[in-house]
């Protein structure tokens, strides 16, 4: 069996008496879209915090590309290609969509004190930027200022900017939160398009999109892994249905 890109072993984190993460183990294979679901307070966000390096685990190990990253800083993990996109979208509102991405590509390429040639005429910047725009479904909007984008489109842009740093694995934290039905469909389509080219760990509440997108799903309940499997297996797992789906979210 091939070693997974990300391997988590018995990861635990306590906040006082609360076991936010309790002996969590899971593996995400290269190219896979792995969804993480669970009722509120199940510890999904805590797990992402632990994975990206925002908080440090009490015990357990995180292995990324065969290297132990558990004690690395967030920046160091990002440099290895383990990158988190936050719930709060953060773009450059008065710059155009294209300029936003060009800036991100510039950051990845370096050498940016040039005062003479316009970056928007530079194929080396423009081509990757345009490719990314296509990947995040925003090529039609490239001339608009980012402020004119809808909520969901800004998320797409944000993901595009994260992709510009060429991550091996994306940690997406509830990208659908706060979006209307239209936005959700659009963003689902975009993530669908990313599948295969980048490994994704997706935390999401919106069940239809999770079941459309995920190759495998891990269910967290009260800080523990309740089940892991294909969407089909999860849908029919009696324990999961009782603990989570049975509440009528996805009847």
């Amino acid at each position: 069996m091939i070693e997974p890109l990300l391997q988590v072993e018995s990861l635990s984190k306590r906040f006082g008496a609360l076991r936010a993460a309790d002996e969590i183990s899971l593996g995400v294979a290269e190219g896979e879209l792995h969804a993480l679901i669970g009722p509120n307070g199940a510890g999904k966000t805590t797990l992402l915090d632990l994975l990206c390096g925002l908080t440090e685990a009490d015990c357990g190990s995180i292995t990324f590309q065969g290297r132990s990253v558990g004690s690395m800083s967030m920046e160091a993990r990002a440099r290895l290609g383990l990158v988190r996109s936050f719930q709060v979208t953060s773009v450059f509102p008065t710059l155009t969509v294209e300029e936003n991405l060009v800036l991100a590509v510039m950051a990845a390429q370096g050498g940016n004190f040039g005062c003479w040639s316009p970056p928007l005429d530079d194929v080396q910047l423009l081509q990757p930027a345009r490719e990314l725009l296509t990947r995040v479904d925003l090529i039609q909007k490239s001339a608009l200022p980012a402020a004119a984008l809808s909520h969901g489109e800004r998320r797409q842009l944000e993901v595009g900017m994260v992709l510009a740093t060429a991550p091996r694995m994306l940690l997406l934290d509830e990208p659908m939160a706060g979006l209307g039905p239209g936005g959700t469909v659009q963003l689902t389509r975009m993530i669908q398009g990313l599948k295969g080219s980048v490994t994704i760990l997706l935390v999401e509440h919106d069940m239809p999109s999770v079941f459309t997108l995920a190759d495998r799903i891990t269910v967290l309940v009260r800080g523990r892994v309740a089940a892991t499997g294909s969407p089909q297996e999860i849908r029919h797992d009696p324990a999961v249905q009782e603990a989570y789906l049975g509440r009528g979210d996805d009847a």
Partner: protein
Amino acid sequence: MRAFLRNERLMLTVLLVFALLPPLFQLMGQEYLLSLLNRILIYGLAAASLDLILGYGGMVSLGHAAFLGIGAYSAGILAFHSYEGSAVLNWPMGLVLPGSESLLLALFVAVVMAGFFGLLTGSISLRTRGMHFIMITLAFAQMFYYLFISLDRYGGEDGISLFGRGHLPGFDLNNDFIYYYLCLFILILFLVLARRFTTSRFGLVLRGGRDNEQRLRALGFPVYRYRLICYALAAAAAGVAGVLMAHQGEYVSPGLMHWTKSGEIMVMVLLGGSGTLVGPLLGAGVLLLLEEVLAIYTEHWMVILGPFLILVVLFARNGIHGLLMKIGGRDD
């Protein structure tokens, strides 16, 4: 992209007007207007340089007049020593800078001095944010103001009077026409360079920092360095405007550095529309013309100008440039 083109067109139109007005004034026999137009031009240059900091860099500096003053005094002090026949600097090891009325030398010294002090004060000011930045830039400008007031040798509060406009080989600068077109040439040169600068990689990073400093840092850009370089370059450009101003009015005084002068230049930028380069030119034109016209009707014109500024802030947020773009937008 279309907005950019329209902006470009507007700038060409404005510069064309600047180029064509002087002969028109002469035809109408209204030569005195030329000196007003020349002042507008020079203030426009100063305001456009502030626009680099304010509009593109998002740094609210209330001390830009200091660099104007440093430029003006560079010209004034050089000329003063030339009249006196003494040296500006007389350091050991043959380091002697004699007085001079050369315009080019004055421009060179002004760019170096204003750029240097921009770098120096900027390196401290840019460690702060928001209101602190506004006030520390203000305080630095006041510092220069008081410094020059205390320089009795150079006229203290009264400043330095120049005899004539200095020398430039091949040109008679005392001819108002020639001096005007020289200023226009320098302004155009600045605008071309500034246009390149703001659309370059550097400019894009700068504008990114104006929008969202946090995100830019997260991308790994050293925001401070970009801002500091921009601040110093804008200071140097203001120094050039200062030299031109000194020679145009044939007079240099600490009043040029007073904080209300910084405020006035800032008003020009906002009135015209910040982040556009051409807006500040329009702003300088409108403000100086307004002063001139209101002064005809009442000596208390400031009592009208004040509320006018407030109304502009409240209701015309993108300044004259924004209004023109809106009108232009309907045509398209």
